[in-house]
């Protein structure tokens, strides 16, 4: 078991190296000059600064040497300096990551819980009206752009009902120290709701399939014959067998979650990692972009790794099969 985890860790490490090579070669292949891209249209950059950029990218060396020196500085935590914010990329990422993480975490838990329950309800009432409603809801949600959902929620709850503010993570014009916790929650509710509404579909459908499989199995037939009630069957058999796949599915969902949070943050002007990446991409802030890309990929790889381990290692029936 330790061995299989180790193999997976090594694989993730090679994937991360591959990712950095891919990112680097994409930038290298592109017709633009990294030094120019870094400086942007900024004519105020002094010759020393240009020299520093050239050194950072190692412009005069071969691509392989360039990559190695770039990767080396990444490993030392030197992601370069953002052009837009004029501060080290890593500092910006650190300050934004928590805001994003709160949003994604809340949506993750909420969509997992609701999705799992909906899936179970649909499976237990298979073929009945409620099952069809849940199925229709999930399939429709898969076709719904998350930003449109966000806009609709914004119109209904912020503009018509005025329950929630239109955007931002804290009230405008208020000092950071005076922001109350309730204000944060108030600003945070709509984006989190948007993200969770769409995250539900995936878990719900998979849990439904899984639960139907379980309910069709022989041990359930036997449990029914023993006279267990629906709730007992769910508690004793259904829950244990279906919760783990649902959790690992949620972990594998990190990539979609991050993409979704980029869109939700854009709609609600929520200052997280995603909206920072959008701004960086639009304004051509390459160092910040690369930094966020690497960090977000690390996040997604971690999610996939956890899902993998849960799938293959924690489930005792899989122990021999690794």
């Amino acid at each position, binding site marked *: 078991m330790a061995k299989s985890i180790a193999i997976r860790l090594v694989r993730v490490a090679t994937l991360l190296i591959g990712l950095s090579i891919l990112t680097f070669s994409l930038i290298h292949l*592109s017709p633009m000059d990294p030094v120019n891209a870094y400086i942007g249209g900024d004519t105020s950059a002094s010759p020393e600064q240009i020299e520093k950029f050239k050194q950072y990218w190692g412009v005069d060396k071969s691509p392989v040497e360039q990559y190695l020196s770039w990767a080396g500085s990444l490993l030392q935590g030197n992601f370069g300096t953002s052009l837009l914010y004029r501060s080290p990329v890593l500092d910006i990422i650190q300050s934004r990551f928590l805001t994003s993480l709160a949003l994604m975490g809340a949506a993750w838990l909420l969509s997992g819980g609701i999705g799992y329950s909906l899936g179970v309800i649909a499976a237990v009432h298979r073929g009945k009206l409620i099952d069809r409603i849940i199925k229709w809801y999930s399939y429709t949600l898969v*076709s719904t*752009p998350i*930003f449109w959902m966000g806009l609709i929620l914004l*119109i209904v709850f912020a503009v018509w009902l005025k329950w929630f503010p239109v955007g931002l993570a804290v009230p405008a014009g208020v000092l950071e120290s005076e922001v109350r916790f309730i204000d944060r929650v108030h600003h945070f509710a709509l984006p989190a709701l948007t993200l969770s509404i769409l995250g539900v579909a995936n878990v719900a459908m998979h849990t439904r399939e899984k639960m139907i499989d379980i309910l069709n199995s022989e041990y359930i037939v036997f449990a029914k014959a023993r006279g267990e009630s629906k709730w007992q069957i769910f508690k004793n058999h259904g829950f244990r067998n279906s919760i783990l796949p649902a959790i690992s599915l949620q972990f594998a969902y990190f990539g979609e979650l991050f*993409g979704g949070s980029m869109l939700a943050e854009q709609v609600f002007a929520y200052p997280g990692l995603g909206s920072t990446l959008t701004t960086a991409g639009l304004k051509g802030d390459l160092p910040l972009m690369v930094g966020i890309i690497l960090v977000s990929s690390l996040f997604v790889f971690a999610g996939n790794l956890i899902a993998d381990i849960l799938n293959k290692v924690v489930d005792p029936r899989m122990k021999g099969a690794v």
Partner: protein
Amino acid sequence: MLSVQEGWNVRKTMLLLAASSAAFLLLLLFLGFWLSNDNLRLSVARNLPPSWEHPFGTDWLGRDMFTRTIKGLRLSLSVGALASVISVVVAIVMGTCAAVFGKAADAVISWIIDLFIGMPHLVFMILICFIAGGGIYGIVLGISLTHWTALARVVRSEVLQVKNAEYIQISRSCGKSAWYIARRHIWPAIFPQILIGFLLMFPHVILHEAALTFLGFGLSPQTPAIGIILSEAMSHISTGKWWLVVFPGLLLVVVIKSFDSIGERIRILLEPASSHE
């Protein structure tokens, strides 16, 4: 007896549903070419709520939102088609290579697939869009390079199954070349899977295209793309112009759902055994 219903069965219902979805999409496409650009001129009919003359209302410049939406969807559909075709080609090549060229190639390709799956798609698309310098070109490239992975896995496992079938071994011992076998035996056998993969990829591709243009990547603000329409409408939400957001988005959802339903129905028609899942 059920003999009354003879001649009408689930298969025909499925066909009918798929055909009506397809007809709907064709109608939209036709409208996209038929509606004149005159409706996009600036006019004095600003900020009108939906009416018979302007089913989706007009925006703050007096442009007819129905025309803008339809034209935007036409763009989405063409970008989606192009990007899906490229992804499918990449998936076929990668999947076939993984299945045919032995263990090493298989390991390398599955590693590449893991790499592409591991990255958040939207993030990677933004990187490619940025590097390609924006424009339709960047969007198509970005989308097609990120959507081939799932289909490549399917192609790989299908090819692996077919590869050792008897008729292929006979064909091989008759001295046919690998290219001949791939073209005449393997690809026809996996064609249904590829068709289904292509159709089910379409909704994702259109969603991602809309997301990219919504974030502001690629296209100039004058282009009637569905994402741009929605992101422009975003700044007019607080003044209560709900129709700018609701209708274009709703039509987009309907289009995506139609594609999804065509893909699903055709999948069921081609694999009748799976219809009860």
